């Protein structure tokens, strides 16, 4: 039976972890052993790590020529300056940009949940795993946890900017990452869901208005912002802060907000950032070039 709400997930968990329920569900749905499910998750995790590695090496720009070297700028600063927030923050922002830029240059990435939001979950899981020396099997648990959160949301609302704005792509990615992080840091099911709720609640209404319809502006940098956003949510949840509005209700609001959002702000590039004076100038140059 599909798990259609977080309340149901909680009931199903009982004394089990979210990831255990996730791998059992997937095992019965796809008719494969739990070990095979975990191997497939490992394949994703390995591809995520490779994308970060490739992204960190490259400064190649995308076809538009607008983006592709921001990660390098960030890393230079981290090398030369003592930053305010320490290593985990540095790595999350750098890894998120590295992945999103790799996506831009047609590199190999893992859609999580989408290609536009591909940097958020990996940056959080991998940065924290490296800094806290968290073993691979725990990283798999974390990715399964993230997947379960995304899956339940996607049962209610399609995770596409064209349907519900960027709240359903980068926003949901951030909620997935927040839950994954709590799992890695030893939190329980309640704390995992609180973290996801807090992350999601604070991105409601996020629009999708990419300049020229390309997955570049604002998408790439947004991955870094929402990676860090997930950490705030996880820290709050881990010290017992609760979302006054339960996660199922927050999910319903995300869906409803998506419906209320004008089509102009849902991936049509007919409004918002995409129709600013500067965006129109960029558009002119780009379309003349191509």
């Amino acid at each position, binding site marked *: *039976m*599909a798990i*259609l709400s977080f309340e149901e997930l909680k009931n199903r968990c009982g004394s089990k972890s979210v990831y255990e329920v*996730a791998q059992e*569900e*997937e095992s019965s*749905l*796809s008719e494969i052993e739990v070990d095979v*499910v975990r191997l*497939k*998750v490992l*394949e*994703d995790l390995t*591809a995520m790590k490779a994308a970060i590695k490739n992204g960190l090496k490259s400064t190649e720009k*995308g*076809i*538009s020529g607008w983006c592709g070297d921001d990660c390098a700028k960030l890393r230079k600063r981290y090398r030369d300056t003592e930053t305010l927030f320490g290593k985990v923050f540095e790595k999350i922002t750098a890894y998120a940009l590295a992945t999103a830029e*790799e*996506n*831009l*240059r*047609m*590199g*190999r*990435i*893992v*859609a*999580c*949940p*989408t*290609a*536009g939001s*591909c940097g958020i*979950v990996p940056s959080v899981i991998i940065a924290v795993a490296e800094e806290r020396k968290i073993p691979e099997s725990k990283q798999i648990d974390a*990715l*399964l946890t*993230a*997947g*379960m959160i*995304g*899956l339940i949301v*996607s*049962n209610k609302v*399609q*995770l*596409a900017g*064209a349907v519900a704005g960027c709240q359903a792509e980068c926003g949901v990615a951030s909620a*997935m990452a927040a839950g994954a992080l709590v799992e890695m840091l030893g939190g329980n099911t309640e704390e995992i869901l609180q973290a996801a709720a807090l992350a999601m609640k604070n991105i409601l209404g996020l629009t999708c208005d990419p300049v*020229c*319809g*390309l*997955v*570049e502006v604002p998408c790439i940098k947004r991955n870094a912002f929402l990676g860090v956003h997930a950490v705030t949510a996880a820290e709050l949840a881990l010290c017992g802060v609760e979302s006054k509005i339960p996660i199922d209700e927050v999910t319903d609001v995300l869906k409803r907000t998506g419906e209320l959002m004008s089509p102009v702000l849902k991936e049509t590039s007919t409004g918002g950032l995409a129709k600013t004076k500067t965006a129109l100038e960029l558009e002119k140059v*780009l379309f003349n070039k*191509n």
Partner: protein
Amino acid sequence: MEQKSIFSVISPIMVGPSSSHTAGAVRLGLMARNIYKESFSKVKFVLYNSFATTGFGHGTDKGLLAGLLGYTVDDSLIKDIFNIVKDVEYSYEYVQDISRHPNSVDIIIDDRMKISGDSVGAGEIRINNIDGFEVNIKGNYDTLLLMYKDKPGMISEVAEIIQKQRINIATLHCDRSSKGGVASMCIELDIPAGDDIVNEIKKLSDVFFVTNVRKLK
């Protein structure tokens, strides 16, 4: 409600930047390859609407061609496909037509077959027309595709042949040009039909074309 896999949110592994405009394009190309099957020397892609306006920035053009040549969505070589392809002549046309889906393409192979399809989101695709006939191939099932002269009883004759092999039919879709004219049938199957089934259907009178379209991985 159909139960979804966890890998619908933490996959696929793909080359960027867009699931609809890049991965979807590769899958449309792959599907056309599975339908056409033969080798070819010339292809023309007609890109519609959003595929036409933002396709160049998403590598839609490269994805379509790479898919048609058999590259899968996660192949890092896709971005260099124009430098790799040697003996296939390819061209692109860009069209705005609101009667078509926002992400839509016609793939015309060797001036012999025209395959049309849409990228419907999250990398999912649908082939909806082959040489003017409505079809419905989504690539998640093995599909038996046939063209025949419309006549009573054809569906049951074909179904019987499939039934004999104990293969379950998932869905069946028909279209015809006119009563007694040319008709098409798409049958989605739970397991792929073997050559024996294809050959037996071929032997039925008034069948012009049968092919076994493999599902996408």
